[in-house]
Each structure stands twice: as C-alpha cells, then as structure tokens.
C-alpha cells in the first residue's frame, strides 16, 4: 500500500517503482499542469479536466547545487527544472552529482516516509538517464 507524497503527482500502479508522473490537462484550453490540478487556472472550470500521464523522462533545462538543505534533506542538495514530453516544466530534486544542461533524465522513485496508518509515502527525484563513467 502506498500513496504519493505529493498529492496528484504520480500514477498509482500496485508497485510504486512503476509509477509515472501525473498531471492534468484541460480539455477546453489544452493547458497542462503538474501536479494534477482539479480546476483549470485559465478557464476557471474543472468540467474538462482530465488526468494526463507525463511519463518518466525529462530534459534538464536548469539546475543548481546548494550547500544548504531543508531539514530532512542532505547536502550537497541538487535541484533543477525538467522539461517533460509536451513541454511541461517542473521543479524536482536531482539525484547524482554531475549534471549538464540538456541531459536526459529519468524518474527515480523513493519511499520518503509513512502516513498515519502505515501507508508508504513515495516521493520522486530525477537522475541522469545514463550513468557516466
């Protein structure tokens, strides 16, 4: 039993390792949002909102490595902006130490805690698609 740490961020197959990013698409104006957003920001209606699977891959379009991290996260702390299929841009933590703009990245899923009742909470990061030697 598991659920996404960030509500509306992941599809929910039985095995969390098969999850993909989830968003919403407004059937009226075609805007895509991440995470899933019940009401379209442009149209101000939820009537045409559909779930859209955003996949497991993205291109790294920006990143930074910080020497400060919030409680519960370690340094060095890498975060970045990924562009997903369809042009949606999302913020994400990054896994790894060597990054390059334009790099292909893949979703990395991890259990980050437990909800009251024992359900695992699953978070995500992105890591380089190819491990460099």
């Amino acid at each position, binding site marked *: 039993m598991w659920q996404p740490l960030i509500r509306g961020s992941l599809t929910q197959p039985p095995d969390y390792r098969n999850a993909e990013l989830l968003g919403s698409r407004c059937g009226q104006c075609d805007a895509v949002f991440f995470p899933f957003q019940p009401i379209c920001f442009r149209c101000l209606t939820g009537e045409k909102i559909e779930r859209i699977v955003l996949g497991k891959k993205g291109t790294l379009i920006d990143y*930074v490595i910080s020497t400060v991290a919030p409680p519960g996260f370690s340094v060095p702390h890498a975060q970045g902006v990924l562009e997903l299929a369809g042009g949606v841009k999302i913020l994400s933590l990054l896994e790894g130490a060597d990054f390059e703009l334009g790099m292909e990245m893949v979703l990395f899923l991890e259990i980050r805690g437990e909800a009251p009742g024992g359900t695992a909470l699953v978070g995500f990061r992105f890591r380089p698609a190819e491990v460099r030697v």
Partner: protein
Amino acid sequence: MRDVFIAGVGMTTFGKLVDKSLKDLGREAAWDAIEDSGIDPRRIGVAYVANTYGGLITGQESVRGQTILRECGISCIPIINVENACASGSTAFNQAWLAVASGQHDVALALGVEKLYCGDLSKTLAALATSADVMVEGQMGIVFAGIYAMRVREHMRKYGIARQQLAKITVKNHFNGSLNPKAQYRKPLSAEEVLSSRVIADPITLLMTAPVSDGAAATVLVAGSAAEFLSKPKVRVMASSLVSYNPMAGADGEKPTLTRAAEAAYGAASVGPEDIDIAELHDVVAPIEMLLWEQLLLCGPGESGKWVDEGVTELAGLLPTNTSGGLCSKGHPAAATGLAQVAEITWQLRGTAGARQVQDQPRIGLIENGGGNVANDTAAVAVHILGT
C-alpha cells in the same frame, strides 16, 4: 478614488535584536511614523499589521496585530492581520492605501513587524520554508536559495553576465548600507570579499544574500483632504499594485509576473519606466536586481549587464536602486521590508536621506516587494509608485 499622501514613516534599526519583542519593535516603528506624521493618533481609523512568521517563531499565531498594537495604545479601530510572506509589508501598505483612497477612512496605519532571530537557526529556517507550498514544493525539498541561483544562472548564460558583475551589485548595496544608520550591515565590501565568501548555491555566495533579521517599519497614510498641513514636498501614492503567482509564468510568451504588476502600476500612475528616478527593490540575493530592472521595464531585455558596468544604479548614477542598502545590507525582517522600502523612498523624495541622499532631487520613486513561492513563481508581488 481619492489622492492619498504619506504623512509619516518610521522604522527601527534592522538587525539581530534579541532583546526586543514583536511588541517593542512594533511600538518603536509605529510611534516613529505617528510622530513623523504630526497627526493626532486618535484619528487613525484603521490599522493593517503585517507579520509573517510570528506564529512559528514566538507562538503568537493569531491576533498578532492586536497584541502588537496593545502596547502602542491602539485599540477599538478595525485591525487587520496581513500575511503574504516577504511581501506582507507591501500588502499592508496596499490595503491601507485602498482604505483611504476608497473613502472609507481618512487616516490609516500600515505596520510591518518581524522577529526571525530566536536562538535556534533551524527553527528560523523551518519557518522560512513555510513560504513555499508545504504540500508540493516544500515536500520536494526545494530551497529558495536554489530558485534564485537558477534564475541568476539562466540570466548569466543568456546574456553573458560575469561573476564580477554579480559582485558589483552586491558591493553597491553594501556601500549604500554603510551610509544608512538603520542598516544591519554598515561595512562596505570589496568584490573579492563577496566572491570569496562561502558558496550557498553557485553562483550565489553568502555575502550576496539577504540576512536573517529582526525589525519593524510603519507608514501613516492620509487622504488628500486632510493633507494640507503636511510639509512640502508632499509625497503622494501615485499607484499601488498587488498581484499573485502565475502557474504558467515559465511558459514561452508568458509575461513575467513582476512585469504584470509593474505595468498595472505605471498605468495607474500615468507614468512610464523612464519617469522613475529612484527604486527600492527586493534583492533576496543582490544579483537578482538585474532581472528586476528588466522585468520592471526600467531597462531593456539583456541591458542589465551594461547597466552594471556603467554604474547606472549606483548612488551617483542615473537611476539609483536600493539606496537604503537593499535587503542584503539593510536587512530583511520579512514583514517589515515592504514598509522600510516606503520609508526610504519617502526620505529620498523629501530630501532627508542624509549621507545617502540622491542629489538630483528625485521626484518619482518605485518600490518592488515580492514574497513566497508557489508553482515555481513568486507567490505575491507588489509595486508602488510614490511621487512629489
């Protein structure tokens, strides 16, 4: 809408003020502004009190305004508690202005108070982290320093900006702060010192960032009809614009949120960016000023590097910015900052800014104050234009 004038401004020194409570800071700033205004305080019809982190830092989660104004002797009138992360002070100013401009009240008080020092840095950092969406980006572990560093890096890549230029803006702000008796840091810095300080998130170093601070600032606003007694030059609120995050802000063709706020302010004031003589800007990290100048349309896209090289925004330049020292040098007690920016512009327009007075008698000043982060955009941004 009626004309609204700034009758009085006041602020405490900003810094690590461990012996002062929210009440002490609030009383000092509020009474400074009331005395500066010369108005009988019994005429204040409404008070907007801004405070962002008081609940987490001091335990006063609710009715902060009333508890702070208690030792000021202010009661009975409507008191509104205002929170918009680091833009809380500007939000209080915007609402106080609106209360007077609309005709509802003749005299309004806007007060911003913050205590971030509490002897436990992790408590402070945890409080600051709540200015992001705690259910989304907060859970991801996104850090503000990283967000700003990425924006600066992208700007550097796009326009070939060098680290020396980032340092130069930082040096400018600390130089100005050294002339400001209210500033937290009053020591000029060299570019070498700035660049060699600890890296927070490359290219941002420690000395480029705004510190944690305590402090308070206040403004008394008055309707034009009650403003005859004010000494010249009278400072008028020409515009006050407040906007929120745009979840599509990063998309191609989408106008930056700050530009939206600025255009609304220029429109309401019937001025253009070329009319602005002086500006107080929200430099969470000093280098972000380059993006602010461009997004405020003060300079064209990609011109900010040239502006740094030519010293346009230095104290003796054509458009001085952050003559107060900015957040980096003056300090950044979150909810007080917006109102401290109002105080600085007011002093500059009146000609009473002392050693840091801009010589050319500035007549129109701009204030930009932003805060929080939601959906990878600033949660709240205010732009005010003041003029004589």
